[in-house]
């Protein structure tokens, strides 16, 4: 992120003499071995815990699965689970809804989160308090957050309907029809997750060297220009990281609609994760359910790879 030092390998440039060159190679190999050594505990742990379940889930998605009392029996290799999935109108809607939801909430959260970060950066007194306050919604248990908003949106004793009726706007039933339900869901999610983006952006914001700002002031730039020409480009890698991980989280959206709307009304607020959950645990269709889960993961992976390709240099990866 700091552009003052080039992001190159730690070894100095290859000198002319070949003996020095071989020495560098040895040194690099030592460092590489060290690298593997340092990262192996993490990698081994991750592999041991996650590879088997993921492979099993992928296997379930391509075979005929029946749940027996002794686990699952997987038989045959078949594409029928995926074919069932692709032909299901519910899946197509869930896909559209998940993508739409992700795009809208992430965009709003990044905008609001960056604004919050900008203000937090300027705060000298009370920054710690403000941060603690901000983190409270984010640290709430998602299920309770959903219940809180269910309590707010309730037509009988909810605060929002009471406010609306005082304002003469009637008593709308927020969770009763598609569009208001989707909007209500988004508001609840944005309320809870914006602090996450704000903190990430803030940490990136304070790492921008001051000389940039001073140079801009000397040139007489006003606030907005400074933001767009100086701050934002420096902030791009951080924002990209925040966007990347928010998108990953948003694609796995589950807890909030599960508790707040149960995917309803109808299927209007049913994202892919709840569709997979219902297929597996309510209908006991483990094959198609695993197909939904696997294809969702695949879509997100492809999306992330494309995203990374675009932002690779700025996300800080190196040769």
């Amino acid at each position, binding site marked *: 992120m*700091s552009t003052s030092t080039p992001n190159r390998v730690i070894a100095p440039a290859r000198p002319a003499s070949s003996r020095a060159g071989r020495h560098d190679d040895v040194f690099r190999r030592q460092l590489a071995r060290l690298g593997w050594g340092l*990262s192996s505990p*993490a990698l081994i742990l991750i592999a041991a*815990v996650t590879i088997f379940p993921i492979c099993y889930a992928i296997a379930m998605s391509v075979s005929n699965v029946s749940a027996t009392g002794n686990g699952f029996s997987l038989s045959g290799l078949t594409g029928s689970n995926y074919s069932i999935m692709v032909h299901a109108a519910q899946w197509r809607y869930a896909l559209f809804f998940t993508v739409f939801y992700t795009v809208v909430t992430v965009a709003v959260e990044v905008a609001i989160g960056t*604004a919050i970060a900008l203000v937090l950066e300027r705060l000298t007194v009370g920054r*710690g308090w403000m941060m603690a306050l901000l983190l409270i919604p984010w640290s709430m248990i998602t299920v309770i957050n959903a219940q809180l908003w269910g309590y707010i949106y309730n037509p009988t004793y909810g605060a929002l309907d009471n406010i609306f009726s005082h304002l003469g706007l009637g008593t709308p039933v927020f969770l009763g029809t598609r569009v208001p339900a989707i909007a209500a869901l988004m508001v609840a999610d944005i309320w809870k997750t914006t602090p996450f983006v704000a903190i990430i952006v803030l940490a990136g914001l304070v790492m921008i060297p001051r000389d940039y700002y001073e140079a801009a002031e000397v040139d007489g730039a006003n606030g907005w220009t400074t933001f767009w020409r100086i701050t934002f480009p420096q902030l791009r890698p951080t924002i990209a990281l925040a966007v990347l991980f928010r998108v990953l989280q948003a694609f*796995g959206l589950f807890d909030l609609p599960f508790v707040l709307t149960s995917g309803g009304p109808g299927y209007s607020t049913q994202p892919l994760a709840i569709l997979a959950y219902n297929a597996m645990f309510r209908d006991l269709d483990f094959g198609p359910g695993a197909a939904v889960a696997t294809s969702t993961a695949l879509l997100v992976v492809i999306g992330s790879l494309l995203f990374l390709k675009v932002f690779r240099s700025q996300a800080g990866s190196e040769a």
Partner: protein
Amino acid sequence: MRNRSRHGWHRVFNGVNISAFLVFLFIVIPLYWMIASAFKTPANVGASPPQYFPHPFSVKNFDVAFSQNTFGRYILNSVIVAVVATALVLVLGTLAGYALGRLPMRGKFTVLVILLMISVFPEIAVVVPLYALLRDIGWLNSYQALIIPYTAFYLPFAIWILRNYFLAIPREMEESARIDGANPLRTIWSIILPQAWPGLFTAGIFTFTACWTEFLMALSFNVANNYRTIPVGVALFGSEFTVPYGTLFAASVVAVVPIAVLVFIFRRSVVSGLTAGAVKG
């Protein structure tokens, strides 16, 4: 302190400030609603029209949460699981993040992408095979049943975050440490970590919160009452047809206190860490 002319900044400062104040209200009002409702009498929680201020003030909801529902035990379990998993993630993640960020390893980017792919896979598909795995090892209904999977699933994100912050540290400092003869671990400890404090904080608070609020795996692996965590315990409040909002909110108020306390305790370090980063540049 920054020495900035107020003239050009003043307008933006106010514009941003006002909208941020509105956002502040947006954040605080539902929070207030939750806290206020936690202190209403159970009967008034469902009052229509709703009470905007609890009257009479009552702590009955807290009493119900703790006495009738062994909530204290769930808090303890959540604390143990979250603290240990977060510590593990930070230690392993720092090592791996440093290695994958600074050291010349072939196939580094492949590893990072695979890590990304792992953290992306929907939990629900993974729960059943993972359950069978844990059952075979005999780890069901224990702390490690949650600590190990949480560490494994939240490490990728932490590695990415930490790596990102490590990359921003100027190389000269590492090189001078190396020239002085420090081994890598020492370099990490005395040079890298103090500089990358914001990244550690971000990764740590993310992991802690994720462990604290995770529901699906906790529900599936730790069904025995004395190992349940808070989200699962909360799912037991009430009965088939009632949603005990008062008790839920009381439990939530109690559950957010540790996080608020942690941030408050570390706020000076966080603030100085953040501003030190600013001054240094």
